[in-house]
């Protein structure tokens, strides 16, 4: 098992190399001249050249690339002009907020969409099937920032069930001691139910927004792969052997149908991490997405680069986790490796 994980870690290496090359290229084609930007508007060509030399921008690209990789290895992502902090520190400080939101969104989404997809396939043609199809088509059509705003209007302005969309925790509470960085978990660990409630009241609306967004692909794939598996020969064999419908559906069909669903999770994560940026903006969520947006507005590029890189590496790691999960479910992959 450990050997397989190591092997799969290996397959992630080319992706990470690709990610680093692309982010490096993105930093080199930044608008305007990085040196000119640092030197300020009134700089002389000579001053710009000097800055270029100090930043190493007059070196050939491969040398610059090596320097870039060296910086990355030491966690040096540059300084943010807006916060005055190293980008690396900013991002590590804000990452838990994004992670908590994304994971909770995914959890809600899976808890709803997988049973929905299974029921739709088992009761093909029933109302639940139609519901599933509507959710699947409508869900992917909803602009996530728009859904978020609608939910805010309904649940905050109209019904008052949710607090104002202003971050992770109301200012009257102080954040729980950091263990995981996730407020929901940290507050429970600290035994502080009140803070947990406060954190929950802030997070449920953005998490539901994300869940609605990622519901569609999972429900659709669950339904489609369940349908395919239910029509397969081995399910017929199981039925002809007199196994209980519950055993046939959950024990035989579902585990097989899960495989394409796990694969879809990779794509869902890609969508979720992107949607996360938009949702953070709508709910003023202090994660790395809103950090990047603030930086973009002030033309502060180091945080943007750091953000893209962090997201990409996070995504590569998530895909790795998905691969390992897949290997756990499917013996064919396990033995091939």
């Amino acid at each position, binding site marked *: 098992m450990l050997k397989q994980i190591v092997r799969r870690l290996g397959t992630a290496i080319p992706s990470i190399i690709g990610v680093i090359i692309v982010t490096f290229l993105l930093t080199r084609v930044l608008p305007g001249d990085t040196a000119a930007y640092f030197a300020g508007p009134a700089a002389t060509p000579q001053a710009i050249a000097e800055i270029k030399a100090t930043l190493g921008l007059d070196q050939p690209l491969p040398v610059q690339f090596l320097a870039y990789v060296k910086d990355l290895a030491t966690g040096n992502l540059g300084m943010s002009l807006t916060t005055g902090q190293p980008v690396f520190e900013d991002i590590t400080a804000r990452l838990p907020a994004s992670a908590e939101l994304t994971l909770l969104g995914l959890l809600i989404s899976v808890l709803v969409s997988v049973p929905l997809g299974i029921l739709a396939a088992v009761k093909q043609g029933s109302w639940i099937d139609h519901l599933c199809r509507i959710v699947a088509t409508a869900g992917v059509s909803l602009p996530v920032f728009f859904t978020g705003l609608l939910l805010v209007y309904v649940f905050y302005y109209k019904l008052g069930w949710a607090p104002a969309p202003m971050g992770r925790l109301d200012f009257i509470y102080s954040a729980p001691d950091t263990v995981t960085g996730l407020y929901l978990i940290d507050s429970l660990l600290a035994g502080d139910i009140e803070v947990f409630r406060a954190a929950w009241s802030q997070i449920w609306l953005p998490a539901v927004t994300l869940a609605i967004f990622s519901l569609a692909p999972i429900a659709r794939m669950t339904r489609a792969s369940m349908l395919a598996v239910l029509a397969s*020969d081995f399910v017929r*064999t199981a039925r002809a052997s007199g196994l209980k419908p519950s055993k046939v559906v959950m024990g035989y069909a579902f585990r097989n149908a899960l495989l394409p669903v796990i694969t879809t999770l990779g794509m869902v994560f890609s969508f979720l991490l992107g949607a996360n940026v938009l949702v953070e903006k709508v709910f003023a969520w202090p994660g790395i997405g809103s950090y990047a947006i603030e930086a973009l507005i002030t033309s502060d590029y180091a945080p943007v680069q750091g953000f893209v890189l962090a997201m990409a590496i996070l995504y590569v790691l998530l895909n790795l986790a998905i691969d390992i999960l897949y290997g756990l479910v499917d*013996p064919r992959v396990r033995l091939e490796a």
Partner: protein
Amino acid sequence: MNMHTTADHAGANHMQPPLLDVRDLTVEFATRRGTVRAVEKVDLTLAKGETLGIVGESGSGKSVTSYAVMRILDRAGRIAEGSIGFAGIDIGKASESDVRALRGREMSMIFQNPRAALNPIRKVGKQIEDVLIEHVQAQPSDAKEKAIEVLKAVRIARPEERYHAYPFELSGGMCQRIVIALALACRPQLLIADEPTTGLDVTTQKAVMDLVVELTRERNMSTILITHDLGLAAAYCDRVMVMEKGKVVETANAEAIFRAPQHPYTRKLMRATPRKGVSLRDLLPEDAAPAAAAPTAPVKGAGEPLLVVENLVKEYPRQAPTGGLAGLFGIKGAVADPFRAVDGISFSVARGESLGLVGESGCGKSTTSMMLMRLLDPTSGRIEFKGEELSAIPAKRFAGSPWRSRIQLVFQDPTDSLNPRYTAARAIADPLLRMGSGLAGAALRAKVEDLARLVGLPVNLLDRFPHQLSGGQKARVGIARAIAPDPELVILDEPTAALDVSVQAVVLNLLQELKQRLGMSYIFVSHDLEVVRMLCDRVIVMRSGRIVEEGATEAVMAAPKAEYTRELLSSIPHPPL
């Protein structure tokens, strides 16, 4: 419910009622085009210990009948009329949970394509346990032990090891044994075998059938064998029931049905079944107009060698397992001994001759035909055609060679080999357009129509797309396309494997007639010795990439020299005549 004692009790009684008693069974399917009757007013009885064969071509309703008996029709199908009595229970009216208790315990089913019939991600032993536990034949504590016993019963070597295997780790024949084990685990009274050997090699086929017969006899079980192969049914069943378009046309003793078939359809089907001592002509229905003695083209230089193959080898690299860091960086491990798909074969084909190339799957016959077609480059060896060394021209450039038109192929799957977006006429015209016939417009159309007439394809079907044609019609289009450039050698790659036997009979006769008319040579690739015997002058038997026997077809069939050929021949099911 205690079926066993009831049955045993009845067994003592000589006036026992049939185990299975189906009356007026009608099954309907809801489709887009309205309700379709797949099975109509079928009567069927099966006594304890009896073996019944249900024979029919695709769409005859033979499988649907058995699914109705097990009540595992899919959602669109329903039993519209009639009754199904099984050991005194009305299956049609019983509750779902009652029927479920019967399935697997009192009646079981085995399917074609055994690998697909098993859960791909569950250990086979666990799958057997599931059935045993479901029907309270085992407790979780002793399930493993009992499952291994069941594996032993179907003669699986090293059952303790196989218990932990996943289906993809087992051969097709082994998977079928597991499926049989699954079906017989709870010692049911009725076994339904739905094309249990289709897709398996002939030798495996025989082993599987023999096992089924042995086990069911031993346990005094009743069996229904569903097959398209009349020979198989007659060889293994007491009685045979023939179905056509959802109706039973004839039921009789196996022997009687072969000796004196009553219904015209049975006669046609029986005639079409390739068997000992008959010629191609005999396969066609009696009422088919006798061929107007096809004008035989005098073969120029008959007997001269057309194709000479010397020491042909095809190797595929076998990738050694890569480990550790080398694997990480995509460095391939040391190359192991390459796999030899074709291992140094030599033979020749004379002008006007037809040569059979016979063997089971994986013997290298398809690889050989791909190399002869010059779609694949051999690793070493010579392919000489009319004295020209064709193996010197790489496969990639062969399409542009003038020799391309001299060798053509008829494909195994007529559907797959036609471009879905080309009409029949366009498909037939393709080689004429590409290989410089210079024909265009009306002249091209006239030539295509001539070809269509030659292969018996109605000219009014020429503007149809493949999905609008039947299997037999598509086969004709494929043949017309192959003979369009007037080739001297045609390779027939199992050209009838995907067709029903009556269509096969017609297509085989067509091929024979075309050969006589046009004076071509054939290489007929097949797994079916009986068909090869009728069509070929000489035969080559291949195994593991080598030729094990070669000779005149009749001589090889009558007195095989190689052990393997004898084994192949003895595996062909022969009706009890």
